[in-house]
């Protein structure tokens, strides 16, 4: 056991809830996601929240792009769906994460997916309406 300068054993502080990442806001999680590499440690809730916010940001960006270009029709919508799933899949594969520890591919890919589709549709429709009409 490590000791202080006066020879008394140092008290190890117990992990607090802050280490779980559940308290981190979306900006902090997104910054961590962008800086993460194969050695970054992820708690379960922290990772799921990060995946959620990554999808929302992607939905926002795609909605703006699709509306400005514009990309229309079912093909454009399916293109977003494919891009959304593929981008998150590639991101967590790059982290060399064992997805079984976090619920498997299904949990990671489905986390935040319905809200991201709704956000994409809102932004796409709004941008298309404002820019094109």
């Amino acid at each position, binding site marked *: 056991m490590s000791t202080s300068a006066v020879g008394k054993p140092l008290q190890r502080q117990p992990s607090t809830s802050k280490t779980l990442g559940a308290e981190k806001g979306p900006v902090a999680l997104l910054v961590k996601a962008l800086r993460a590499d194969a050695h970054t440690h992820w708690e379960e809730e922290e990772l799921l929240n990060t995946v959620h916010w990554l999808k929302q940001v992607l939905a926002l960006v795609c909605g703006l792009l699709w509306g400005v270009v514009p990309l229309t029709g079912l093909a454009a*919508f399916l293109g977003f769906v494919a891009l959304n799933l593929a981008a998150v899949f590639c991101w967590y594969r790059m982290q060399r994460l064992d997805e079984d520890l976090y619920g498997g591919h299904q949990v990671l890919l489905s986390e935040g997916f319905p809200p991201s589709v709704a956000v994409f549709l809102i932004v796409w429709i709004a941008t298309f309406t404002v820019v094109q009409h």
Partner: protein
Amino acid sequence: MVVGLPDIVEVVLFNFLAVLLSEIALYYAKYRQTGFKSVKEAVRRQVNRDSGKNGLGKLKSGRERKLERKDNNLKRDATKEVAMLRVYQGGVTAVMIFTVYRALNLAFWAKSIAKLPFEPASFLRMLAHRGLESPAANDCSMAFVLALCQLGIRPNLSLALGWGPSRRMNAMSAVIPNQQDVAAR
């Protein structure tokens, strides 16, 4: 409503404010209650404890049995808190949606507020063209945008504010005890 903003932007902003107000109402009604906060904190401590565990062995020591009893009590408390929360959430959400729909109806009934960049499928057409007289294929009614806002804004705002139950708390409240847990009791 507000001069200068496109109709769809007004509807989205109005929905955002309504969802924010409903979350604040839930915070004062439920999230800041001592019972809810203590269960939420206990679940967080359990997650912290479990993350260092390698799993229970086949032979359970007295301490492990005690912890298991504590976990079962926590599951019961979490289930109770989340069930009560669902009642509050249902009530607040219903009142909010009803109010927002009535308010937006007054301003945007029979008016296309946006142009859709796609032709809605048959099962969406009724919602996308709700209240519109002789709509074009890609006309969009207020009701469709309202539905999308509820699906998109609410979960994101809840997660960003972080006031509600954690994922673990929701998962615990939905756990059905398996045969091992029942036999251990």
